[in-house]
């Protein structure tokens, strides 16, 4: 019978004792910051790729297609290793550590964040494109007839409307992103999971420590679900949209409730 070491479990799960450990403290911060930056850049890359895919200029379409094809068709882990170690040996870019406002950002964190962002962009491209294509073409015509250029019409008329369509899947992407940052462990970037791995190497309590680690991620995704449903409720209220799924449904991973088939009216 395995003896569960509650002391180790609580020590590394619960602040403040867990936060006394500098690895967990910075690991948590790195995970959150990397998730946000990678998601933000991912949306940007996705927007460019979506516009490229819809462009009248063939080379833009081809570049966007190849980008999406490659980064959705190959494993993120391989992309990350390729970017960090692969580019390193070619000396195209060595990912040197950067010190920014007294905080050291390791090359591994930079490479990992960039890999996450580029990969995410390939997925966001389809989400952004679907959002833009959901908008009535009459909107672009009306904007153009008022003298707007394509760029201004996108920025002022199409994208604000597409955002409504994009926000729910974007929220789900961010939820995934927080969990996917754990892959950075492979290039020894000092994120949260790496911290637990290092502690485990020292005290060897994998059962206790990895349960504690999983609960950290559960806490992050749960908090995000709550924020996300607030955002969506706000969007829906203003524009008179359908009600988004309730907070509990979202946390438990259920879609919007549907009437059972044949319930009648």
């Amino acid at each position, binding site marked *: 019978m395995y003896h569960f070491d509650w002391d180790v479990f609580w020590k590394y799960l619960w602040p403040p004792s867990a936060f006394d450990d500098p690895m967990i403290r910075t690991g948590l911060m790195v995970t959150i910051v990397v998730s946000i930056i990678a998601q933000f850049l991912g949306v940007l890359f996705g927007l460019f790729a979506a516009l490229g895919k819809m462009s009248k200029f063939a080379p833009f379409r081809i570049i966007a297609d190849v980008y999406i094809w490659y980064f959705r068709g190959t494993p993120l882990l391989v992309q990350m290793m390729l970017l960090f170690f692969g580019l390193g040996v070619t000396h195209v870019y060595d990912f040197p550590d950067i010190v920014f406002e007294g905080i050291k950002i390791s090359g591994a964190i930079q490479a990992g964040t960039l890999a996450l962002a580029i990969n995410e962009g390939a997925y966001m491209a389809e989400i952004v494109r679907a959002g833009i294509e959901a908008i009535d073409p009459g*909107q672009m*015509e009306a904007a*153009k*007839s*008022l*003298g707007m250029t394509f760029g*201004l019409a996108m920025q002022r*008329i199409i994208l604000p409307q597409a955002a409504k369509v994009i926000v729910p899947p974007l929220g789900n992407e961010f939820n995934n992103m927080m969990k996917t940052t754990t892959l950075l462990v492979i290039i020894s970037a000092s994120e949260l999971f790496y911290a637990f791995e290092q502690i485990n190497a020292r005290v060897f309590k994998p059962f206790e420590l990895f349960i504690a680690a999983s609960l950290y991620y559960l806490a992050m995704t749960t908090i995000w679900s709550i924020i996300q449903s607030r955002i969506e409720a706000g969007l829906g209220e203003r524009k*008179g949209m359908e009600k988004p799924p309730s907070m509990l449904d979202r946390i438990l991973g259920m879609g919007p409730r549907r009437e059972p088939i044949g319930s009648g009216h």
Partner: protein
Amino acid sequence: MELASSSLTNDKPIIVQADKVNKYFGSLHVLKNVTLTVRQNETVIVIGPSGSGKSTFLRCINHLEKINSGTIRVNDRLIGYHERNGKLVEDTEKNISRQRAEIGMVFQRFNLFPHLTALENIIEAPVHVRKTPVDAAIADGERLLARVGLVDKRDKYPAQLSGGQQQRVAIARALAMKPSLMLFDEPTSALDPEMIGEVLDVMKELARQMTMVVVSHEMGFATAAANRIAFMADGAIIEEGSPDQVFGNPHEERTKQFLSKILH
């Protein structure tokens, strides 16, 4: 009557000059040598069976559709193209946009921006295209809302307005750019019958001061507001004349057939 209306307009400057316009959708020849002149303050109403190319022609006037041959000039400038070594080259996006800013367009399905209020819809282009100061654009927008009888709907979103109200806001939105020409693409055909009148009233008032090209089947409106009727069928203008002449004494067989269908 015929003489009166033509002598009234002949000395006025030409606003729209379409010359032998041809357009194809693939192998389909949708506009066949369409030639039309519209002078300042004139209201020309284009009628004709569906599929006759009248909406397509209207959309060519502000280059929402490209033409394959011929020329369209608005205020004496080529639309969508410029001449280079005797050849027509498509214009830059910036130039096309600048020309479109001078041409107001009202659509069948209103196409108001649903994420903006009535007033925001109206001031959007003046502020972001013309760079009008926001205060001035708002003052102007409120005047326009008053003109179409919707001051109290200033802060409503399109979804909170009836179809007729939306179309009146759309007219105000187009007028906010102070265009020299207004294009109306079947402005009342998506409306419930009881709302058609309120939109036509605004358009009748407008027709007294604006140059307008209107695609419409509203015979009452055509008789009251049009200086000229152009009848289109199969991609060509078959007959053109004053409302009295075209409705009362059509020369072409095709026109007679069409009128007999819509007047009964």
